[in-house]
């Protein structure tokens, strides 16, 4: 049995864990450890072989493994300990972590501060209650992605995709390139849940139809899936009778959402946000349990890894300062409210503001797709900050850095998202008509 003491331990070595560990080192933590259950660092990035990562962070377009590679090198150079193949069983209040793995055996670690960076997992068939039989050939899109990109297996040749999340869209293209036929993507909502660029380059490029307001009402097949029955839904998401039709297939991929993998957080009773399913945190990403921080997809599901890294830097730095005793337990004294038009906001709390910090970054998601909109901050003094947005989609996170002086003393802090009555014309548009 191995025993050790660290200033900061990140649980999970994906993009959030690596960025948090690096930031903790930079903020002066001497002993930093990453505990990762997989055979290598990088998390989900290692199976996301497509490009499009790192535009904000590195100002160039990288693949998932390429983005991971950059961080793995930085982690290696920063004097951070890494335990691979190690699964954390418990991280108790006070910072005692128990983990197990084939090389470490059973080990305990004492951490002065802990960063939860466990990421998220996919919702499965059980989570959306698809009726029908239980044949082989039904996978989550991410499981299929791992099979195709890392293990070298094609999970099927004739594919139907349920849900229009980004991984499903990416896999529609990937399976097509590998010679499978992707018949269609069905989305129960009247709008897509993926990034617009993925609709274009993964579906439209290959002529794969996207059916909005459609759901699967039955999965057929005994040993292997043989087909699905699909139907249109109304505005209340109820099946419209008579709209059912059958589609043969030998593979069904599900891309129906992601949920934070927050069991370790719940086990020690951190307060969780009913909407994000992640912890409730303050601007330092400290949870309701002293010394426990959270960042990345375990906190709230992001759509860009660059923003995960960014958020994890906040958590890692804060964890280092906590370990040093520079600041203590979160005071969580002010609530941040996601008001009209908004589904969620992170952070959900503000603790005592840090001196010398001019702005705080907030992440939002809208309730529904909207055209030109205005996001505004309301306090008891009225609207103290706002910004125009050209287009708003629930699948695309809104990020805003808000000057602290606008709400430094406010007791009521509420964000609202409303339609913009006076949108600006498209940039570059010709204002006057020439003869």
């Amino acid at each position, binding site marked *: 049995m191995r025993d050790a003491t660290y200033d900061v331990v990140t649980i999970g070595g994906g993009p959030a864990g690596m960025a948090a560990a690096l930031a903790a080192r930079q903020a002066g933590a001497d002993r930093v450890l990453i505990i990762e259950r997989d055979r290598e660092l990088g998390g989900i990035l*290692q199976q996301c*072989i497509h490009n499009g990562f790192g535009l904000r962070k590195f100002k160039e377009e990288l693949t998932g*493994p390429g983005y991971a590679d950059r961080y*793995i090198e930085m982690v290696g150079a920063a004097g951070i300990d890494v335990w691979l193949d190690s699964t954390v069983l418990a991280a108790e209040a006070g910072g005692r972590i128990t983990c197990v793995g084939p090389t470490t055996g059973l080990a305990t670690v004492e951490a002065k501060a802990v960063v939860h960076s466990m990421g998220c997992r996919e919702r499965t068939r059980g989570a959306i209650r698809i009726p029908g039989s239980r044949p082989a050939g039904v996978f989550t899109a991410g499981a299929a992605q791992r099979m195709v990109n890392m293990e*070298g297996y094609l999970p099927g040749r004739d594919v139907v995709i349920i849900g229009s999340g980004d991984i499903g869209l990416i896999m529609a293209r990937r399976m097509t*390139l590998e010679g499978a036929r992707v018949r269609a993507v069905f989305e129960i909502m009247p709008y897509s849940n993926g990034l*617009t660029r993925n609709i274009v380059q993964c579906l439209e490029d290959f002529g794969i139809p996207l059916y909005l307001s459609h759901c699967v009402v039955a999965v057929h097949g005994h040993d292997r899936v043989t087909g699905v029955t699909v139907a249109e839904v109304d505005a209340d998401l109820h099946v419209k009778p008579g709209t059912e039709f059958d589609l043969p297939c030998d593979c069904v991929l599900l891309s129906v959402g992601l949920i934070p993998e927050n069991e370790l957080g719940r086990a020690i009773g951190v307060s969780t946000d009913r909407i994000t399913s992640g912890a409730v945190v303050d601007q330092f990403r400290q949870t309701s349990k002293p010394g426990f921080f959270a960042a990345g997809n375990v906190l709230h599901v992001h759509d860009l890894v660059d923003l995960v890294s960014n958020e994890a830097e906040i958590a890692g730095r804060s964890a280092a300062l906590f370990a040093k005793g520079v600041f203590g337990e979160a005071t969580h004294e002010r609530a941040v409210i996601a008001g009209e038009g908004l589904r969620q906001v992170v952070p959900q709390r503000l603790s005592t503001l840090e001196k010398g910090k001019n702005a705080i970054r907030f992440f939002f998601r809208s309730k529904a797709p909207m055209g030109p909109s205005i996001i505004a901050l309301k306090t008891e003094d009225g609207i103290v900050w706002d910004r125009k947005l050209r287009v708003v989609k629930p699948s695309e996170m809104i990020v805003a850095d808000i000057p602290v002086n606008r709400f430094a003393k406010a007791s009521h802090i509420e964000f609202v998202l409303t339609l913009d009555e006076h949108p600006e014309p498209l*940039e570059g548009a010709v204002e006057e008509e020439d003869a």
Partner: protein
Amino acid sequence: MTSRVQPIQCIGCPVGCGGEVVLDGDRVVEMRGFTCEKGEAYAAEEVVAPKRMVTTTVRVHGGALHFLPVVSDGPVPKEAIFDCVRLLRGIEVTAPIETGRVIVADALGLGVDFKAARAIAVASDGLRPA
């Protein structure tokens, strides 16, 4: 002047600007809605000769992983994507492999190289070259 307006959804980055390109025949006369130069360059090309980045995997011998992700070092004409993937399906490499190594140079004479997107160590050394 017979001009037509073509709506283009930029895929240059995840912001996903939607814009329009005004064309006179094959000549771009006006663009609006793209918020950066990269987007304008993409849109100008998209209306005449669409291109895409290509990523896939190739088989690895003696490596800690059996598949190496590879990526084109520039965009490939859309109609050549399947041919590129087919070409790469026949490629096999031997570990160790370092990030950025050219796996196929000037694929199909398109002037595009395919490069290793990550490092892979030999099987006995763990997952990464020492």
